[in-house]
């Protein structure tokens, strides 16, 4: 009986972990869907957003090291702190500005190029943003506190202990992440379905040429999509940054999103969510049952194996669009 409870606990925690992966995968999907670009920089966008948020919140002087080195000053902080909500809003604004700059300085010059060229441009963008984040805010590990609770949920533990005789572990941060992700997805779906800009975005996703022919501005759509992806990256950055501090390894969370994308499909928002949940649950249960037999640490590789197994049967992913090209 205990094993059953343990497995159920692992299952629930796998779902929660899957939501965290989905948050990262969503950003990839948005950009790929609208422009056909696999945005290698999505993980770095999450890092950059989280660094900027902490910097604004703590009143850090951007480029302080550079300014101090050039002018012999000793600037580090403005001497004020910014409330979390305002800091998040300001960071979201900066992500919009960044989206505008990316479109203006990178994408605009690559219109009509092969997708691989655009992909390579995003690799360059990732390195640039990582370096920029370092120069702007410093390489030290930062504590991110926007008021999200962490640690075991006493309510869940007490309730399950009373009902089942075994108190389940659920992290309060994961519960919040799940609620926020649900809201985010609902907002994205509503935006895509019920707003003019959302419909334009879907039109571009379906057919660039047709969308252009009816007067939709590709430039505007790209800025909008990169802005939304930037905002999704900010949410992912907040969740992962709260969990383990804001540091440069945050950009590596993109590795967790790749199997989710392979499984869920690169073009589907629900696919990113369902894919994340399957990967989260699959890797946790595999680690629980099989891990001890093979020495553990199976999660990283098992996620990819699981995604590859799905690809054998559905190459476009669970929810991806089936593309048929005639020669």
């Amino acid at each position: 009986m205990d094993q059953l409870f343990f497995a159920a606990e692992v299952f629930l925690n796998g779902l929660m972990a899957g939501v965290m992966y989905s948050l990262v995968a969503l950003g990839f999907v948005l950009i790929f869907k609208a422009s056909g670009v696999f945005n290698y920089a999505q993980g770095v966008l999450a890092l950059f957003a989280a660094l900027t948020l902490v910097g604004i919140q703590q009143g850090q002087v951007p480029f302080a090291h550079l300014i101090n080195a050039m002018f012999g000053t000793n600037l580090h902080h403005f001497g004020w702190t910014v409330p979390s909500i305002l800091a998040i809003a300001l960071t979201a604004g900066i992500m919009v500005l960044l989206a505008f700059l990316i479109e203006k300085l990178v994408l605009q010059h690559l219109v009509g190029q092969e997708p691989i060229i655009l992909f390579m441009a995003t690799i360059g963008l990732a390195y640039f943003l990582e370096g920029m984040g370092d120069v702007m805010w410093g390489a030290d590990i930062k504590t991110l506190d926007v008021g999200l609770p962490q640690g075991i949920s006493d309510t869940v533990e007490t309730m399950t202990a009373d009902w089942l005789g075994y108190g389940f572990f659920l992290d309060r941060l994961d519960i919040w992440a799940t609620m926020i992700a649900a809201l985010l997805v609902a907002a994205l779906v509503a935006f895509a379905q019920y707003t003019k800009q959302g419909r334009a975005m879907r039109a571009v996703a379906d057919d660039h040429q047709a969308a252009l022919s009816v007067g939709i501005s590709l430039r505007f759509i790209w800025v909008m999509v990169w802005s939304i992806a930037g905002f999704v990256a900010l949410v992912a950055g907040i969740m992962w940054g709260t969990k383990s501090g804001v540091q440069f390894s945050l950009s590596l969370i993109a590795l967790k999103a790749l199997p989710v994308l392979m499984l869920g499909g690169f073009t589907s928002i629900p696919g990113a969510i369902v894919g994340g949940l399957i990967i989260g649950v699959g890797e946790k249960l595999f680690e629980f049952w099989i891990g001890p037999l093979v020495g553990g640490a199976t999660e990283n590789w098992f996620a990819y194996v699981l995604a590859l197994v799905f690809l054998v049967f559905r190459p476009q992913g669970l929810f991806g669009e089936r593309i048929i090209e005639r020669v």
Partner: protein
Amino acid sequence: MKLKFTTLAAGAFMAAAPAMADLVVPNLSYRTGPYGANGTQYADGFNDYFTLLNERDGGIGGETIRVPECETAYNTEKGVECYEATKGGGALVYNPLSTGITYQLIPKAAADQIPLYTPGYGRTSAKNGAVFEWVFNAPANYWDGASVAVKYLLDENGGDLSGKKIALVYHNSAYGKEPIRTLEELAEKHGFTFSALPIDPPGQEQKSQWLQTRRDRPDYVLMWGWGVMNQTAIQEAANIRFPMENFIGTYWSGSEVDVQPVGAAANGYKALTFHGVGMDYPIYDDMKQYVIDPGKASQGGQFVGSVLYSRGMYAAVVIAEAIAKAQELAGTSQITPAQLRDGFEALEISAERLEELGLPDFGPAITMSCENHGGSGMARVQQWDATERKWTLITDFTEPDQDVLGPLIAEDSEAYAKEAGIEPRC
């Protein structure tokens, strides 16, 4: 960050320049990437001590010390490239701060006859100088750390660990796996149950391992982590309400960067160390006067006194002392790497000498010889005070269990000697 480009450029220039009379001690550092926050502080401490010697004493034995820096990003391939790029510039010794890089450099350094100094990391059995002629890892290595941790737990439990459960969460890499064999031997000797939980690097997602810890309820958890794995593990331990005073990290899981992101929940967490921490040492008066105030400190001196800064500085202290010894033995101030090896093998840093250096009781007394490249292996335990935001040393330097470690080191080093065709010397 601010000095990175200039130091890299200077490093590249100096590496390309013909050998000059300076003492060249390359700093294979990492200030970028996932482990940059750790590598930066260590590199700063390493640089600043040599800057202090140059500014205050005019170098060592009248020779200026040059510390060309090369960025490895904690990447083994880049580390080897850095070694190859700098060794032609008269490099005397390397301290790459990476077990992966060290493993790659051991045969190269032996072929090039350049010493490696790997305090607290690298290949543990390099302590056997009869086999590893060019590698030094005093004052302590991984196995020493595992043994000191178990000794500490023995003290905490009235000398009896039988029936206790001790788990190890480890970085799933060559580094993280190092203490497993030792802990298995110690478990057999002391009758505790040992289990090992690997965590794939970088280690941001550890839910499975901590759910298992919650189910298994070990009495103590030891950690061999690095980078983001440490912060995540401490946070996850706090999440499952694992008592922090029963959670002990190794040397590389016990710096400010590991505990500060967790906040108050990290209070009481313990870690091993083989040196002192904080600013309560006279050396910092000189450091302030000659390095920090004149603006010559690496990164403006923002990490002075932190655990990793202190460790980088301590590595520089040992290298500087070995250089001075080598100069004394060779009768010349312009020494070669081979002469520096002799300096390491004759090195003795007593408590009195540490006091003269402005570092009283900072580290254990170090005595190295041809056979013993690892010193006494003594380490101590420190504990994090989240309110004061500082580490406090809670034990004296403790000797590891050489009865267990000695045969393990002999076995591993002899296997290496056989594999590499090395005839043991001394």
